């Protein structure tokens, strides 16, 4: 009999797990699987940095950076505008817990509206919970547009999860361990009610069930099947169901007199100074050379700032193509994930500084295997064949000016 129950339990478990999987949200990391147009034409991630990449359990690390929302001209028509969006993290589940997050200094426990063409500074504080090597990305979920994933960094956590401590003081003065808080009480109530349910089921399962009862019911003798004992047990079960519900509810109300409903407000984010200034850019033509993994852009750039500048970088979907002639290997760049960094990826036809007020036609080539590796090249198969990104200019003081670039893209397939 015990053996039978073991087998039964295994079969139930298996079918339950199968049924559960059907309802689970997709878990895959999948940052490269996303359509290139969503990664190139929605938001651009700028100066993303992670304070610590080697942590012990309980240590905290902070992801900071800026995110530029592309203007309406480039934002894809097929993606919803960021009327409601949430600063999130893409990671392998809660291997690190999120202690706090901010956009332009505003607490981002809630969702908020973001504006096209605007820039936002973000900060995400994570606390290491499970040992392992984790790929962590900042991410913005835009309602009806999907997750927009930023550049990912490998973070290594050492130690043991058993040492993980995540305490918090409530407004009613209790200190609780968030990971285990209430779990015992949850299980206790499930067990109490479960036992009553099982007792009720056993009362019936102990009787001959289907065969003989069916025969009697069909002979219209069904009512004779109900005994006085059945009625008595049912009455008791009814009273217990009502009584225990009342008791559980009152006990909880007495134990937790101060409770609030779930909170869900939307945040309002003030604008920060725009990163996009001092440059006017017109895209004349852009092509993507498939065999060479190179995007070529003919642009007219006008310097509307007060200092001469040069083109230093093309950045799209987290991939950074640097112009080695202009030298922008700062600390942030050195720490940037190497698989997203094309150190010599950008060639500019003329590297002499563009003077204030001058308009110059330039030929830019952004070439790297990253086009393939990051699966951005598949944008040539998109229905609208458009790209987007940002160019970084560096003026003679080393100041960075940013401008959007984007438009239609013509693929060339022959090897030239």
């Amino acid at each position, binding site marked *: 009999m015990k053996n039978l129950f073991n087998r039964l339990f295994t079969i139930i478990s298996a079918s339950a797990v199968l049924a559960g999987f059907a309802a689970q949200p997709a878990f895959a990391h999948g940052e490269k699987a996303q359509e290139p147009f969503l990664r190139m034409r929605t938001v651009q991630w700028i100066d993303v940095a992670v304070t610590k990449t080697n942590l012990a359990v309980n240590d905290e690390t902070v992801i900071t950076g800026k995110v530029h929302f592309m203007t309406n001209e480039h934002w894809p028509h097929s993606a919803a505008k960021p009327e409601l969006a949430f600063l999130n993290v893409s990671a392998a589940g809660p291997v690190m817990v999120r202690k706090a997050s901010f956009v332009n200094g505003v607490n981002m426990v809630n969702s908020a509206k973001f504006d096209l063409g605007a820039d936002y500074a973000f900060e995400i504080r994570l606390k290491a919970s499970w040992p392992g090597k984790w790929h962590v990305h900042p991410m913005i979920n835009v309602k009806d547009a999907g997750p927009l994933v930023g550049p990912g960094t490998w973070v290594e956590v050492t130690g043991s999860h058993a040492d993980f401590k995540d305490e918090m003081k409530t407004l009613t003065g209790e200190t609780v361990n968030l990971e285990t808080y209430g779990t015992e009480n*949850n299980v206790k109530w499930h067990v109490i009610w479960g036992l009553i349910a099982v007792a009720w089921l056993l009362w019936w399962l102990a009787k001959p069930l289907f065969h003989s009862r069916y025969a009697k019911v069909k002979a219209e003798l069904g009512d004779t099947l109900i005994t006085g004992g059945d009625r008595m047990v049912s009455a008791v079960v009814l009273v217990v*169901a009502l009584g225990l519900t009342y008791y559980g509810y009152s006990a909880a109300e007495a134990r937790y007199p101060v409770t609030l409903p779930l909170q869900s407000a939307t945040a309002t984010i003030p604008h920060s100074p725009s990163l996009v200034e001092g440059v006017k850019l017109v895209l004349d033509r852009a092509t993507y050379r498939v065999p060479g993994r190179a995007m070529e852009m003919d642009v007219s750039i006008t310097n509307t700032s007060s200092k001469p500048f040069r083109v230093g970088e093309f950045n799209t979907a987290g991939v950074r193509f640097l112009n080695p002639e202009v030298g922008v290997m700062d600390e942030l760049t050195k720490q940037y994930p190497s698989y997203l960094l094309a150190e010599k990826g950008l060639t500019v036809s003329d590297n002499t500084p563009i003077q204030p007020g001058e308009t110059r036609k330039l030929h830019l080539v952004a070439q790297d295997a990253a086009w393939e590796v990051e699966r951005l090249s598949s944008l040539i198969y998109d229905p609208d064949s458009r790209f987007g990104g940002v160019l970084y200019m560096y003026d003679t003081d080393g100041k960075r000016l940013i401008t959007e670039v984007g438009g239609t893209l013509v693929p060339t397939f022959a090897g030239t």
Partner: protein
Amino acid sequence: MTTTTTAQAEVAAAGTTYVPLSPGAERIGRALDWVIVAATVLVLTGAFHLHFMLTAGDWDFWLDWKDREYWIVLSPVMAITFCGAVHYILWQHFRLPFGATLCVTLLVVAEWIVRYVGWHGWSHYPINLLTPAYFYPGALALDAILLLSGSWVVAGILGGSLFGFLFFPGNWAWLAAYHVPVEVNGIVMTLADYIGYENIRTGTPEYIRIIERGTLRTFGQHSAPVSAAFAAFLCTLVYWMWWFIGKWFSNVKYITSKGL
């Protein structure tokens, strides 16, 4: 055999053609019972769990979705479905009243297995974020009322209402603890909100939560009881609907009953 004589007396009294089973047939019937129970348990667990996850899924799944409106209304209404259908089958054919309790017990066992093994064991989400709600109080009351009244109309009105109405107070016994307020960098949240925020869910951004919206909110402090009352009303209707779905599914019109 005394059982036979009693049964024969019943037959005589009822004036029907009931032929009692022989002791041998009785024994075989009992063995078959367990085969039927095993098959029923498997089918019910899989089907009900799938149905429930597809309808009340996120509300039941996450601690920070269990609000005073949608969760309280949707969960019991989506759960009473199978209870009604199984009630029909077990009561009309066998005069057995434990269908609702059976359904909700299997559901919660399946939920615990998936969440404990997959989401806690594998993906490290804490159990408190994943604790399922239970329907035991309402299901036990519904079963008991069906037996005591012997009527699907009464079971629907009284039992169905209790199924909907007892859901919230029944679960508040464990859920209340998570509605204690905390302050997070100048914003008030419940512990449930914060536990949900802390544990990164890539595919479940905050705005996706459908909670605390709509006109029910105008009832202020009394949202939960109002939602529970609304759930009670809907449960009665849905119970009856699914009672007939049970009838439809247990139809034997294509099988001849000659020789039974």
